[in-house]
């Protein structure tokens, strides 16, 4: 019997995913966004094969050279090939984006599920804590964390991740609250299911859709925050090829070599825009009621 039930469950899930994909496919923007994201991921993974030069190879060409056939995006003040650095930069940005969202979603999701499920005093205390987190502007909180812990990759991810916790906590908490009082939870308890199992099996699936959407948009905002912090000199330090710090470096040569600021920023904009368009499309596909 359980085998059959699982099979039915699996079937239903598959048909659900199919349905979502069918709805998503109609949205040309979302598909285009997804393609750009996939291309970028491929670029990050295959960076060593794609990049014409090493990202930190100095004097790969003349210094501050404009775009040319040999250096399509020009070179920076150390003569490093800008295209190679942009390609390697995708690794850092996507890495930071996904890990930061992972931190935020896992911590936030856990907090939200626990406080929503148990309610009462824990709920009160943790939600007040979220109020406190929300009372500090996100970027400024991240700046403070990186400022205190020191500017490096790990701290950057922690800072951006922590500042994203409240949004996931809220979604999961709302879902847990709405599920908590329902009869099937009582029933699950009656047959002796553990709290953890109830949370994992009943509460999380109910808020997967908003979590997925929020995560997609969250990756976009994490990439943006990380780049901003690096731009301020509070994130990834040179010579690591990171888009934000490349911009910061290029800024000094705005007059003579504007390409140094133009391309890294453009690619940040493209990535973030693609993620946002895709996230939007995903939301419409997951919740057709919202679509008008």
């Amino acid at each position, binding site marked *: 019997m359980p085998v059959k039930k699982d099979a039915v469950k699996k079937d239903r899930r598959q048909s659900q995913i199919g349905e979502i994909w069918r709805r998503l496919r109609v949205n040309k923007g979302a598909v285009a966004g997804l393609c750009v994201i996939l291309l970028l991921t491929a670029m990050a993974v295959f960076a060593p094969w794609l990049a014409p030069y090493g990202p930190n190879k100095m004097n790969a060409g003349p210094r501050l050279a404009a775009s040319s056939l040999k250096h399509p995006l020009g070179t920076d003040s150390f003569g490093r090939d800008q295209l190679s650095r942009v390609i390697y930069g995708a690794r850092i940005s996507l890495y930071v984006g996904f890990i930061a969202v992972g931190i935020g979603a896992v911590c936030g999701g856990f907090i939200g599920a626990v406080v929503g499920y148990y309610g009462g005093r824990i709920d009160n205390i943790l939600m007040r804590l979220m109020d406190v987190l929300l009372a500090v502007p996100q970027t400024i909180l991240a700046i403070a964390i990186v400022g205190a812990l020191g500017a490096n990759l790990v701290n950057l991810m922690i800072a951006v991740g922590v500042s994203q916790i409240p949004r996931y906590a809220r979604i999961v908490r709302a879902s847990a609250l709405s599920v908590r009082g329902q009869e099937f939870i009582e029933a699950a308890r009656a047959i002796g299911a553990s709290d953890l199992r109830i949370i994992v099996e009943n509460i999380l699936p109910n808020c997967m859709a908003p979590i997925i959407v929020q995560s997609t948009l969250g990756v976009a905002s994490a990439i943006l925050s990380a780049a901003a912090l690096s731009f301020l000199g509070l994130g990834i330090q040179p010579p690591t090829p990171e888009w934000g710090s490349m911009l910061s470096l290029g800024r000094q040569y705005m007059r003579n070599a*504007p390409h140094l600021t133009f391309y890294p920023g453009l690619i940040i904009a493209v990535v973030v825009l693609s993620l946002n368009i895709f996230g939007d499309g995903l939301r419409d596909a997951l919740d057709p009621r919202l679509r008008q």
Partner: protein
Amino acid sequence: MLRYIFKRIVFLVPVLLGVSILIFVIIHLAPGDPAETLLGPSATAQDLAELREQLGLDKSLVLQYFTFLTNTLKGDFGRSIRTNNSVLEELLDRFEPSLMLAIFSMTLAVAAGIPLGVLAALRQNTWVDTLCNFVALLGFSLPGFWLGLMLMLLFSIMVPILPSSGYGEWKQLIMPTVVLATNTTAVIARMTRSSMLEVVRQDYVRTAKAKGLNGRLILLRHIMSNVLIPVVTVVGLHFGHMLGGVVITETVFSIPGVGRLIIDAIRFQDYPVVQGGILFFAFCLSLVNLGVDLIYALLDPRIKAQYRAG
């Protein structure tokens, strides 16, 4: 209503207290030693110890926090390690540019975002709607620091008509205002659009049509009054985001505001200034949210009634 305002202000206290603890803990997680930073590598052990004592760094964290808290409540945010000026004075000195920037940007964002959203909703599913949506998403996705640099490139270097940095004359505020407003405009436009699409389907709009009112009256009186309610909420929620933008914009355009002050302080490990600055931002954000709640009550009589009851 007054009672409600009072209640809200009282409610602010624990939040700000929490923020002060949070900031204090984060700042004191720092691995570096400000005394060392301040005196440089040549300082003797005795010099360092003296300075630590002078700054209260030798006491326990809890004690340091309570000293910090009681001083803060007295309006004493401590002294900057770097300049030895009072932190409060430094903050107030730098307040005006940040405030101007925030006010101008919010005004621009509201003035541009709401019409954009209304236009998109009125032309739903046409190319106008698609274009408005795309522009909004673009505005939402552009990194502020890059947009700032590109505007600078365009209007200060290629066609030099605007000053690239500084603060003092109105021309210097144009580009920073646009940069800071872009993101908020996008958020407001998107919220206005979806709120409007929701409202036009409501029964009371049909009632208004059935009464034979003219279209402009229905739009302005019946639709917009309801559309604005969620938009105001979003403006409030987004204000924190905007304060983050203030830091970045001030850095890009070299504006001597509170944001720049905080960034510089972090570079010099000037804890009191960082602490005070962030607390100051949190305080501003809380005040704005209080204001937003009051506007909310003005717009929605149902909320107002709850306040009266509570």
